[in-house]
């Protein structure tokens, strides 16, 4: 197994622990916005889509990578805007009370 793979596995395991720790014990009103925000964060695959759009060859490669860029952009932009709207609703509801 190459060395860099070990380093990547270390990073993965540590990030998993951080993820577990961050989310333990959150109030249930925040479940939906947290789901929505983490949904936007995995839109980071857009970085992968850009990277692949450089290395691909041929029509099939271009179609695949362009499709990936489109879908990932939807995930990023839509994800953050939806989360912001959900959280904006929180504030107005609180102000009304």
């Amino acid at each position, binding site marked *: 197994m190459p060395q860099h793979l070990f380093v990547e596995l270390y*990073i993965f395991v540590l990030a998993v622990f951080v993820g577990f720790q961050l989310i333990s014990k959150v109030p249930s009103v*925040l479940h939906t916005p*947290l789901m929505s925000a983490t949904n936007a964060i*995995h839109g980071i695959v857009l970085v992968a*889509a*850009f990277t692949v*759009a450089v290395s691909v060859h041929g029509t099939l490669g271009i179609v695949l990578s362009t499709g990936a860029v489109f879908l990932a952009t939807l995930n990023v932009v839509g994800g953050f805007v939806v989360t912001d709207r959900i959280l904006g609703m929180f504030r107005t509801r609180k102000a009304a009370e």
Partner: protein
Amino acid sequence: MQLMTTIAYLVTAILFMLGVMRLRSPATARSGNLLAAVGMAIALIATLIANHQFAALGAVIAAVILGAVVGTVSARQVRMTAMPQMVALFNGMGGGAAALVSVGEWFVPGHAAGAGAVSALFTILIGSISFSGSILAFLKLQEWMTGRPILFAGQRILNGLILLFDVAWAVVLLVHGSSAPTSWLGLLLIGALVFGVLVVLPIGGADMPVVISLLNALTGLAAAATGFLLGNNLLIIAGALVGASGTILTQQMSRAMNRPLMQIILGGFGQIKSSAA
């Protein structure tokens, strides 16, 4: 250039973690989302500076503009009550993107070999399941189809067989590597897409948000696997963060509803008890 990208990715990883931290309290949640969005922008700009020799520049620009416009407009226009299905839809897009990236890499000679091939096949499987499952969840919640559980005889066995076939087929592809015929990879894709639909079919009503959360965690794992495939640490960190926090979140959501998580998920494998209630 390499150094600048690495530093930008580090800043993004920190902003993602700070963002999720702030999302744990209603008072700071909105700023947390903003922090994460800023982190995302930094990573994307750094990536574009380092990788801009696109095979088809026009197509990439068009895809980004179209995606940003459609994403913003649909997220802004949708009714407040329709938010969960929007999350499901955008989650599915992320899963689909991860799968497409891996299919693209699969065909680049020398890119998907050894551990890379495992990552690619894993991403294709998980990403496709998340894609079709999320779209079905969207259709159900949007009431473009019945939102009630759809059950049929032998559902559990059929789902189990399809999953088994998919995993076995992935192993076959792994053995043959990228020399395997294109249609073989297509079969894996179709199997995973069908499985995603079948798993969400028997789930309905109040269980849907929990399933969406689970699919969200799956897409996170797919993003992390894409990170292993491309050797990109930021993707590994962000994907693992979402995968882990999504899993915990799924557990907490099912607990808040007083429904055992396994009952909800296994509901996807033929739940008869709760359909009678």
